[in-house]
């Protein structure tokens, strides 16, 4: 009733005559957002995640910026952590335990560093993202955005440290004259796989952490155990053949072995890698599902 039917040729003029401030009143026919208990929120809304990609960028950027503020050594810490661990491992396991003869001809320091590089990234990413939601309580209770962005940003920030520590690996490889092969093409895929696994584990733990603060205490312990269960300072073939299959159900086994194969040109164990990829996908899907389920109560209980 408000708008009398107008001839078609006049509508164009009408639109032009409308002052811009009224555009806000031309409401869409369907709601932009429907808020209801349950259903509408439970689906994984990838389009919404995409819409918030800039926030992911800014939160990652903040984590990176803040991490080394007011430290004397700054970004050098990203290298120091794997470097010193490598030196200690070289002395302890390489020399004293005599592991340097079992690395398939690769000098132990570079062998250990190639394992420590993804491991340090994974361990830090899981730890920081596992604690990220609780640490962002002020955001969660005050602003809406897809909560997955918070643990996601922690993992992404870890990637920055990873790239810095990677520079040292290049140096080590040159120093020990490790020949490069086409296997290197696998490297980016492995980085992606590591990130996704870290995201899956970190996201799941972060959501649990909101409800059960036990996670905060269990996390460092869990991470330590996980390191011993992964071929970080020892080669996988150190294990007896019959146990190796069980061992490979730790998705990091295929991934870390993959890193070494890719860097040192050793044959790639495709079955182990495929198993890791499958386990990572399963972990990620389960984590996303349970995160969405727990997400609804975050603001009320964090």
């Amino acid at each position, binding site marked *: 009733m408000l708008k009398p039917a107008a001839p078609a040729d006049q509508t164009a003029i009408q639109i032009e005559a409308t002052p811009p*401030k*009224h*555009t*806000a*009143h031309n*409401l*869409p026919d369907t*709601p*932009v*957002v*429907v*808020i*209801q*208990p*349950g259903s509408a*929120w439970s689906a994984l809304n990838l389009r919404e995640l995409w819409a918030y990609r*800039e*926030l992911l*960028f*800014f*939160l990652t*950027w*903040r984590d990176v*910026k*803040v991490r080394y*503020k*007011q430290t004397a050594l700054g970004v050098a810490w990203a290298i120091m952590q794997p470097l010193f661990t490598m030196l200690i491992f070289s002395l302890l396991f390489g020399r004293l335990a005599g592991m340097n003869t079992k690395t398939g001809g690769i000098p132990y320091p570079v062998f250990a560093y190639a394992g420590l590089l993804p491991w340090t990234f994974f361990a830090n990413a899981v730890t920081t993202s596992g604690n990220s939601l609780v640490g962002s309580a*002020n*955001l*969660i*209770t*005050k*602003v*809406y*955005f897809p909560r997955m962005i918070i643990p996601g940003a922690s993992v992404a920030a870890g990637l920055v440290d990873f790239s810095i520590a990677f520079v040292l690996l290049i140096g080590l490889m040159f120093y020990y004259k490790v020949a490069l092969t086409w296997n290197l093409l696998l490297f980016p895929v492995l980085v992606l796989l590591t990130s996704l696994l870290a995201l899956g584990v970190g996201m799941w733990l972060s959501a649990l952490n909101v*409800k*059960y*603060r*036990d996670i905060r205490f269990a996390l460092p312990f869990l991470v330590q155990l996980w390191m011993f269960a992964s071929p970080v300072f020892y080669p996988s073939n150190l294990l007896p053949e019959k146990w190796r299959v069980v061992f490979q159900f730790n998705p990091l086994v295929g991934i870390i072995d993959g890193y070494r194969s890719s860097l040192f040109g050793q044959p790639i164990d495709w079955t182990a890698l495929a198993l890791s990829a499958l386990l990572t996908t399963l972990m990620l899907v389960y984590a996303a599902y349970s995160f969405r389920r727990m997400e*609804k*109560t975050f*603001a*009320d*209980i964090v």
Partner: protein
Amino acid sequence: MKPIVKVEHLSKQYQIGAREAAYGTLRESIVDLARAPFQRLRGRTSDATNQTIWALKDVGFEIEPGEVVGIIGRNGAGKSTILKILSRITEPTTGKVELYGRVGSLLEVGTGFHPELTGRENIFLNGSILGMGRHDITSKFDEIVAFAEIEKFIDTPVKRYSSGMYVRLAFAVAAHLEPEIMLIDEVLAVGDARFQRKCLTKMQDVGKQGHTVLFVSHNMSAITRLCPRTILFDQGRVLSDGPSHVVAREYLREGLGTTAAREWTDSSKAPSSEVVRLRAVRVRDEKGEVTGVMDISKPIAIEMEFVVLQGGYELTPNYHFLNEQGEYVFVTADNDPAWFNRPRPAGCFISTAWIPGNLLAEGTMMVGAAVTTREPEIIHVFERDAVAFQVVDSMDGNSVRGDYSGHIPGVIRPLLQWETRYTSEQCEIVAGGTPR
């Protein structure tokens, strides 16, 4: 017109003490799990599930595009919960909300500010957290900095900012959000008065540009000034919804503002010393009714009921008035000649102080009640923030405000007698002389 916000039968249930209970540890959950079947056998469930409250109960309203609507109610009335649901921070238990536009919420000033980052960096971080795109922020950057008046410190970490600068920057970012629906919670209760005024003006501009604003506050005066329409919440329900001056009157009548009376029935919990024990502190209007909302033009009585447990002391009851910014507005002490400088016997006393109408400014006033001895000085009891009341201008023309709707600064607002004479047609200033 079609509504931009449509709320239907919205309810939200909280578990009392949910914060503590839900923290839980795995062990507790496992123990609960093991215990649950036995409890069911005994015909009772765990205490936690029984202790629930409805923060919102069957709430419904519609808001048209371009409306600026105030939401008011006392603490726990559900006004913050409705805002949290509308901004999707928490989920309703039942009901439905339809939003026909992008929502921006401002539940706190400076959400996500990081002290280690500079002003410049925080503008980008905070802007993106509040839902602004990077290009949006870049294009409004200079405007935000100018609005916050922090040009010189833009590359200084915000941890070195004064609290005023911090708040100004935080609000400046928020004020430049341009969502179709803006949700604002009490954030204006910060910053100095001049900056508050600036923010209010900016918010009014937002309303005029056709944006829809929902403004939650316990400050009735801010709401009547800013919002043509107000929704009054009480105990999770909509008590009243209509033009602000009508709702304001209802708010006044219901006395929903604050704790207008404190009575200590349990003497062991009452503020007391060996000499004096407080029994009650009340705020009454001129008709003698206990109410927490006062008309600015009417006198207010503050009443203190106390017991003298040990006779023989000279006692002076006194009241301390602080406004919502925490400023000490004034102190008043009993000067009734009947008891001035006279030792009091044991027994019950009631002391009342009358504050004349048109003295206090609009806003919330916290009253501390004390009983002291002057010489030697002994503070027998002092209950800070014993009661509180709100001073509201109903804009009926009997106050300083008259029909002016803007911000009036000042800690008090006395209605003074003014006299203006027309002296002469020619106004040459005579140096050193007084005009005749």
